[in-house]
């Protein structure tokens, strides 16, 4: 492989995607699929840190930013929820394995890993919000000795809407010093786990957590953050992710700003302490 000179590197147009190939499509829920993407040469398209983002596109349809939920030696995984009014996500969901797509990244800051080290962590997620948190959970599990107790609290509307079931019910509970709690919004036949909304369980399940990573629909974030504060977590250790409309992913096109921060560049991961100093415009 040719080694790029300094001037070559400078000339890389970050707005032009590389080609990726969809190697595998996994059905997570009726409206969430995970797409496993490699380069045509069978390599990993890029190496993301937990919480970082990738721009995923079908150039003839559109391009959108998604979190990278996992990666392996030769792939990255992106889990995508289909929105009825989302033109791109509808087409992505109709796609078959072997499809070539545009891919660029990694973008954004990712989770502040060092800050999580040595602490008992509570991960709080709802719906597709588990996708970014999962990248952090998997990182912690791969480097298990660097982190304290892992408590995962995850909720979905129904048992059919739960993503990453194999991780939730098979893989993660086997990891040492790890607890997984799953809840659904309403009682359902064939479900004997928790029933109720995620924020209600946090204090009860993880009263001694030292740091929290929260991601989910806006209402889950809104209700969970104050509970974590009540539990005595400092604002710096209450960590969440934000999502806004993005186009460029590299802090130039303008639209994802909250005050002087760009979510694509300075986020998507923010602490409660940072949010306290930002306009409430998200």
């Amino acid at each position: 492989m040719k080694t790029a000179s300094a001037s070559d590197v400078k000339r890389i147009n970050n707005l032009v995607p590389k080609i990726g190939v969809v190697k595998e499509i996994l059905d997570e829920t009726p409206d969430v699929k995970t797409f496993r993407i490699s380069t045509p040469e069978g390599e990993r398209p890029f190496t993301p840190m937990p919480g970082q983002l990738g721009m995923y596109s079908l150039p003839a349809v559109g391009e959108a930013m998604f979190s990278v939920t996992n990666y392996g030696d030769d792939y990255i995984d992106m889990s995508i929820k289909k929105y009825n009014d989302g033109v791109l996500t509808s087409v992505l969901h109709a796609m078959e394995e072997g499809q070539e797509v545009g891919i660029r990244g990694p973008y954004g800051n990712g989770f502040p890993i060092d800050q999580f080290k040595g602490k008992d962590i509570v991960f709080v997620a709802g719906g597709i919000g588990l996708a970014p948190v999962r990248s952090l959970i998997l990182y912690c599990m791969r480097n298990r000795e660097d982190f304290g107790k892992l408590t995962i609290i995850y909720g979905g509307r129904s048992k059919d809407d739960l993503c990453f079931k194999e991780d939730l019910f098979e893989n993660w509970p086997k990891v040492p010093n790890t607890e997984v709690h799953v809840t659904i919004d309403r009682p359902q036949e064939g479900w004997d786990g928790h029933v109720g909304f995620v924020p209600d369980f946090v204090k009860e399940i993880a009263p001694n957590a030292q740091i929290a990573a929260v991601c989910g629909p806006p209402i889950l974030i809104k209700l969970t953050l104050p509970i974590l504060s009540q539990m005595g977590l400092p604002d710096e250790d209450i960590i969440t992710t934000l999502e806004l409309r993005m186009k460029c992913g590299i802090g130039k096109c303008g639209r994802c700003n909250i005050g002087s921060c760009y979510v694509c560049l300075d986020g998507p991961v923010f602490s409660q302490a940072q949010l306290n100093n930002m306009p409430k415009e998200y």
Partner: protein
Amino acid sequence: MKTIEKAKLDSLFAQLAQNYSLLVPVDYNGLTQFAPYSQVQEGVSQLYLDGNVTVSPKTAYLPQSEAMYKFRAQGKKLAIEEMAGLDKQQVLFGVRHCDTKAIQCLDKVFLDEKFEDPQYKNKREQNIVFSLACNNPKATCFCESMGLDRAHAEASVADVQVYDFGDSFGFEAISDKGKACLDKLTGLGETASKLPDQKPQTLKFDVAGLPEKLKDMFEDPIWDEYSFKCLNCGTCSYICPTCHCFDINNKIRGEVGVKLRTWDSCMFNEYTLMAGGHQPRAGKKERVRNRFLHKLQYFNEKHDMSLCVGCGRCVAKCPVNVDITKFIRQVIG
């Protein structure tokens, strides 16, 4: 200082056009903008040097619509081809000081260390800017209040400084690129005359402490007052020399397509509307506030300079006279 009589301007342009692509300010059917000199030669447009142009020369750096790459999507196959940049140097004649300052603002965004924009950089390298000092500011000009130097263009952007001596223009090289360009020109005179007199600007005010003051004004009722009459059209953003927000979209014919980047405006609903319907800036108030704060506070916080250069275009052209200078004066008090 080198000079040329205005009567011989055509010969200067002809020489420049021989060696470079040449863009000059023109009046095209009532719209003033930068356009190829050939338009003037063909009589399609008239050279316009009476004041600054409505559509700023940012078009020569960030065109209103620009192809980023071509693609072919054939079944499961996808091919992508990047676009070539400008291969010829391009002279922009008569860029005003405010607009050179504006390019410096764009540099902060498009030439940042982490994600440099090669399409922008290519134009930045290929453009040679002849910047003309304004002797007669318009009633809507306020560059002095925004800290600009009316005698000297922004040196990191302008390559040649131009002065208007009434019946002649004077030229002084600023950059090596500018010097090389001037050295190629023949038939220029030489003068040691002092700089032309500049009429004072009438729209003057103090901006000291503005970003700090605005920091505490996010919830101020002033936003209702200023946003009420806003139409949420894109006039201010599109004619502003520093507004640089863009959209990325397609033009497709069958299997082949072009990915475009086109100007966008924070005044438009689609700008921040998310799939699923969430709209963080739903109305006029949120949008006007974001635009003003981006100009006067957010950009300062990130880059330690204002994103308003005082060109006065929005003051002159806003259909409903939403006046950023009135706003600044009211905030400063």
